C-alpha cells in the first residue's frame, strides 16, 4: 500500500533511511502505539512525502483504511538515516540490498546516492514476485532480483547474486536473516556494510528506550541512534 502526505516543515526535510511514526487513529484508540514507517520517497519540490507499507495487523490495516482528507498524525522525520552525501563522497561502488517490504526505504536511498554522484547496484529478494522495481530503474546501474519461488529472477536468495568484493560498501535493509547473511559476506570480504534495523517502538524519539539494541558498542536506540548501523557492530 502507498500513502502520500504533504510535509510542510522545510527546516526538517526527511532523507533516505529515516522514518515517521504514523497514527491514523485517535490517541485513545487501538493499537495503543503509533507505527514506524520508512520514508519511501520525498519530493522536495512539492513536499509530497510517500510511504510504502505492507498490511500486517491492526495498525497498518487502519492506515490502509484511510480515505482522502482523513487526518493522520505523522511524527518525524525520525532516526539517523543514510548520510548519502558522505557515502557517495567516500565510496564509488555501492551495492544496495533489500528484501520484501524492506525495499521501501531504498528508493530514496538510490535516488539520493545517484544525485550525489554514485549510481548504485540494486539487489532485491522477494517471496514470489518483485514489485515497484520500475521506480528504481532511473536511479540504479544494474538491478538483480531473486525470488524464493523462482517465479521471477534468480530462484533462491538475493545473497546468491551478490559478490560483495566488487563493492566499496554495501547498504542493506530487509528481513533480519537476509541482513545477517549480507553482513557475514561483507565481514568475510572486509567490505563495510550498513544495515537498517527494525524494532517495536513506542516513542520513536529516543525517549523510552523501548527499541534498544544491544550491540558491541553498547546499548543503542534503533529509533534515534539508528535505524542505520554499522553491520559489524550489531551482528556477530
Amino acid at each position, binding site marked *: 500500500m502507498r500513502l502520500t502526505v504533504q510535509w510542510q516543515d522545510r527546516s526538517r526535510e526527511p532523507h533516505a533511511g529515516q522514518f515517521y511514526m504514523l497514527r491514523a487513529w485517535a490517541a485513545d484508540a*487501538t493499537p495503543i*502505539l503509533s507505527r514506524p514507517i520508512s520514508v519511501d520517497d520525498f519530493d522536495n519540490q512539492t513536499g509530497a512525502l510517500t510511504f510504502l507499507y505492507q498490511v500486517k495487523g491492526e495498525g497498518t490495516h487502519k492506515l490502509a483504511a484511510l480515505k482522502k482528507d482523513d487526518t493522520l*498524525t505523522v511524527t518525524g522525520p525520525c532516526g539517523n538515516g543514510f548520510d548519502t552525501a558522505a557515502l557517495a563522497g567516500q565510496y564509488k561502488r555501492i551495492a544496495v540490498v533489500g528484501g520484501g517490504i524492506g525495499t521501501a526505504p531504498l528508493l530514496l536511498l538510490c535516488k539520493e546516492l545517484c544525485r550525489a554522484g554514485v549510481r548504485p547496484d540494486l539487489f532485491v529478494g522477494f517471496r514470489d514476485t518483485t514489485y515497484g522495481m520500475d521506480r528504481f530503474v532511473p536511479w540504479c546501474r544494474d538491478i538483480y532480483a531473486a525470488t524464493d519461488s523462482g517465479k521471477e529472477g534468480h530462484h533462491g536468495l538475493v545473497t546468491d547474486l551478490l559478490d560483495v568484493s566488487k563493492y566499496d560498501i554495501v547498504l542493506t535493509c530487509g528481513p533480519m536473516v537476509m541482513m545477517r547473511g549480507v553482513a557475514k559476506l561483507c565481514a568475510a570480504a572486509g567490505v563495510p556494510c550498513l544495515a537498517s534495523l527494525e524494532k517495536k517502538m*513506542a*516513542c520513536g*524519539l529516543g525517549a*523510552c*528506550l*523501548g*527499541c534498544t539494541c544491544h550491540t558491541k558498542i553498547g546499548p543503542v536506540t534503533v529509533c534515534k541512534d539508528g535505524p542505520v548501523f554499522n553491520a559489524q557492530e550489531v551482528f556477530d
Partner: protein
Amino acid sequence: MADLHVDFLGKRLAGPVIAASGTFGFGPEYAGIEDLRVLGGISGKGLTLNGQPGNEGERLYETPSGLMNSIGLQNPGVQHFIDHELPAMRRCGTTVWANLGGHTIEENVEGVQMLCAAGVDFIELNISCPNVKQGGLAFGIRAADAGEVVSAVRKVCTVPLIVKLSPQAESIPEMCKAVEAAGADAISLCNTFQACAIDLEKRRPVFNNTFAGLSGPAVRPIALRMVWQAVGAVSIPVVGLGGILTGKDALEFIMAGAAAVQVGTANFLDPKACTRITNEIGQWMDAHGVKTLDEIRGCAR
C-alpha cells in the same frame, strides 16, 4: 485563562503536568515537538548509581488500552547524567526531577548526594527497584523496607524528596504513612503494575523476566483509587499518575486531591500530550469558572 501554576514544595511549577519518568527521555527529545515551559517539570529516565544496560528480549507489548514495558532501568548512571544529560535537561525551561532507583540503600544514598550536589530541583526516589539485599523483593512492597531506605536518603537529600510508590505495595495507606514518617516531602504514585503476557506461538512469556510493567489508560481507575487512598493517608502533597490521557483524566486526580499529575504512556500516543493535557485542564477550568487549581483540589472528597 485560568491560572495553572502549582506551588509545590517551595517551588513554583508553571503547570500541573509533569512528564513521567522513563517516557520522556531527559526532555530534549520532546523539545522540538512541544513547548516544555508550560510543564510543571520533567522527571528524567530512572537512574541508578552506576548505570545499567537494561533488559534483553522484548521490551514493549501492547494490551487493551495498556502498554507493558520491560526496559529494565537502562540508564547511563548518575555521573554520566550529571555530565551529559543534566545540562540539556535544565535548558528545557522547567523543573528538573531526577528519578533515582537503587538495589541497595548505599547506592540510593550515594546517588542522591551526587544529584543534590549537581543541583537538580527535585529527587524522585523510585522504590520499585528489586532490593538485592532483601532477596529481590522491591523496597516498595513492605512499608518497613520503604521506611528504611527513605530515612537513609532523607539524611543526605538537600532538595525536596518525592518518593514514588509502586502499586504492588502491600497496603497503599500504610506505605504512604511509612514514607511520610521517614521524611518524604511528597509522594508520587503510581509506578507500573506488575503484569504478564504469554506468546502463544512460542508457548512462553513475552518478556524474558516473565513479568513486566503495565501502564496506560487501562490502569487509570486503579491508580486513581490509590491516589485517593494516599491523599487520605498523609498530609504531604501527593502527585498522581497512571493512565492520564486527557485534561479530564488529570482533573479527576486533582479533584481526588493530587497536588499535580504526571503523564507517561500518553506521550507515546500523542507526542504533544503533556501540553495538550495542560491546555485541556485550562479550558475546562475556564468553562467552569474555576480560576485556580486550589479551588478544586480535593473537592471530590
